[in-house]
């Protein structure tokens, strides 16, 4: 007991390090103790002791703005949030039956999904190492469930290989690995690698290739029960008289080397794409709504900001109430601006020329997502696909299957497109009805029997036409980071920017939150020094 009382627990030790050295030191310490190498999050900011009467105006009620408002209010600031939309959450957004959405250009969609169904136009999956977001989800009571990211049984489709027919991910991936293993084993056995690999490691490598690539005793990848145990059977193992399995035929090497195969495999190795992933129960906007509840009564909606001015004494933000047309100027000591750069660059903002150059230096991506409601879960019933993604080289890029209510009866919404780059430009340029038609045409290639037959209704969001963001995510390059990033995240007198664009975790909610915490921590410090 006594000894235990004197020896600090790991948590006490880390708290002490944080108190003395700050969060950077804590991060270093945690990393060297074998913790937390996956995140820069060291816990919520512990801001307190704001000067009496000090005030902050937060621009934008997305996750970065909502978190800033919540933490600064806790620290003692008087906080007002201005939001262009009539809802909070920003890109954290779900569409449900009865919702209407009007995109730039005026096309309006009325969503017709059945009760309980939804479509997440923006963020839709949360990596297990996005600990800031996971922390606040738990703190704010947002229930999470698994997001089925990796499914071996989905389809891979290439218009140029496998006769243009979809093939199972597991079969294509097994054949890719098997062929690579066989070829590498051949090189080793033909002594082609003798100069590079020691005799001992050659033996180890051959053993690995045989075991990993499902090679036979002669180091060949062949149609047999070994390869079938990875790629699937013509007749799977069963019981009784016909219980014996029958292996399946392999795909040809040329088809297996189609970039659709290896790039789909490599996708799941990406740090942010690795399992386990999560989604909120009931739709992604459960997160935005929970964040908004923390700052209830502090948000002014329908506020279109036209001017952000500052002087030595404070900040003045001019906005138009888009419902009444009334022009208002709100004042505060400080400003946290989370307006997407694509919009902010068009606002009369009193910052340094360098800051304005940084704001205007970052273009936005324009992904297109389409949520299709199907009358039944034919992908589960006919294809044994439960969640996960089928990849195609068509414009829609993928079909992603719902992760919740598995085996359920009745209609379900799948993601019928997650188009990017040129595919996204083309789909965005179509009318909402045309987008649905393209999604049905291209999706039918993967599910020919049922896709069109079971279709009920759909909705699409083309991010390049989203009125309040004019794009999906900030796209930094190495060059623009070098020239502008530190300026962008620096405090410009009384204004500090926050959002995914002010982070190295771009396009993720985690980036918005980490940026927000960093911004308000510096703002608070500056406010106490002022």
């Amino acid at each position: 007991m006594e000894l235990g009382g004197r020896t600090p627990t790991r948590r006490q030790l880390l708290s002490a390090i944080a108190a003395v050295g700050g969060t950077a030191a804590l991060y270093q310490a945690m990393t060297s103790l074998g913790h937390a190498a996956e995140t820069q999050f060291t816990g919520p900011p512990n801001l307190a002791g704001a000067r009496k009467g000090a005030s902050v105006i937060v621009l934008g009620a997305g996750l970065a703005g909502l978190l800033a408002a919540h933490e600064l209010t806790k620290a003692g600031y008087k906080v007002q949030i201005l939001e262009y939309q009539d809802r909070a959450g920003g890109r954290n957004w779900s569409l449900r039956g009865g919702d209407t959405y009007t995109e730039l250009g005026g096309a309006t969609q009325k969503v017709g999904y059945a009760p309980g169904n939804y479509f997440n136009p923006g963020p839709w999956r949360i990596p297990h190492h996005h600990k800031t977001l996971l922390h606040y989800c738990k703190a704010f009571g947002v229930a999470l469930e698994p997001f089925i990211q990796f499914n071996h049984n989905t389809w891979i489709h290439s218009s140029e290989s496998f006769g243009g027919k979809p093939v199972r991910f597991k079969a294509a991936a097994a054949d890719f690995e098997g062929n690579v293993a066989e070829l590498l084993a051949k090189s080793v056995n033909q002594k082609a690698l003798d100069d590079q690999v020691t005799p001992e490691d050659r033996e180890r490598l051959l053993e690995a290739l045989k075991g990993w690539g499902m090679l036979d005793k002669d180091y060949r990848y062949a149609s047999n029960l070994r390869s079938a145990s990875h790629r699937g059977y013509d007749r799977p193992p069963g019981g009784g008289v016909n219980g014996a399995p029958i292996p399946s035929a392999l795909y040809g090497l040329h088809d297996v080397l189609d970039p659709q195969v290896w790039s789909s495999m490599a996708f799941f190795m990406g740090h942010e794409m690795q399992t386990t992933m999560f989604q909120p129960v009931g739709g992604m906007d459960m997160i935005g709504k929970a964040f908004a509840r923390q700052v209830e009564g502090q948000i002014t909606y329908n506020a279109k900001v036209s001017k952000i001015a500052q002087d030595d004494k404070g900040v003045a933000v001019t906005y138009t109430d888009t419902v009444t047309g009334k022009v208002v100027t709100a004042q505060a000591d400080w400003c946290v601006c989370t307006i997407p750069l694509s919009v902010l660059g068009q606002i009369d903002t009193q910052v340094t020329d360098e800051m304005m150059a940084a704001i205007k230096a970052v273009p936005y991506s324009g992904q297109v997502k389409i949520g299709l409601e199907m009358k039944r879960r034919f992908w589960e019933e006919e294809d044994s696909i439960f969640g996960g993604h089928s990849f195609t080289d068509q414009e829609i890029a993928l079909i992603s299957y719902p992760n919740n209510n598995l085996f359920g009866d009745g209609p379900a919404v799948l993601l019928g497109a997650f188009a990017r780059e040129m595919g996204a430009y083309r789909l965005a340029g179509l009318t909402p009805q045309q987008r649905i038609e393209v999604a049905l045409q291209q999706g039918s290639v993967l599910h020919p029997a049922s896709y069109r037959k079971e279709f009920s209704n759909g909705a699409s969001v083309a991010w390049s036409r989203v009125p309040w963001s004019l794009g999906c995510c900030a796209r930094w390059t190495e060059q623009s980071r070098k020239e502008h990033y530190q300026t962008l995240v620096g405090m410009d007198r009384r204004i500090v920017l926050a959002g995914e664009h002010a982070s190295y975790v771009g396009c993720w909610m985690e980036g918005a939150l980490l940026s927000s915490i960093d911004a308000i921590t510096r703002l608070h410090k500056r406010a106490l020094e002022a």
Partner: protein
Amino acid sequence: MTIRFPIALAAAALAITAPAVAQTPPGGDTGGGIVRIAKPVTGKEVYEAVCQACHMADAKGGVGAGTIPALASNPRLAGAAYPISAIVLGKGGMPGLTGSLDDTQIAEVVTYIRTNFGNAYAKPVTAAEVARIPHPTRGGGH
């Protein structure tokens, strides 16, 4: 049918050209795998496949929290350098498009917007004019 017909036609028109393979750029929440896109050739095809995503089919742009400028009846298109530079370098939230379009495609589409949508600047733009503006190295990621 009224919807399917024009799309099928457009697809058929584009199908004769070699598709471009676009791989998922690193970073950001994006799809896996590769996408093969039929290459738009004429100015009209490029406009419909790319520009109208933001500037709209009628080139009138749109107004929300910010503005997508109209290309229709736009006197700033009188000189070709302005639209060429916007497409090559990007402008604010608009990305530069040299990673997606080659100089000939850019020349075709600049010629197209300068001679349509209420603009009448007849002189065709050449790929050489596009090449004269230094192209950025394209960075991946979002």
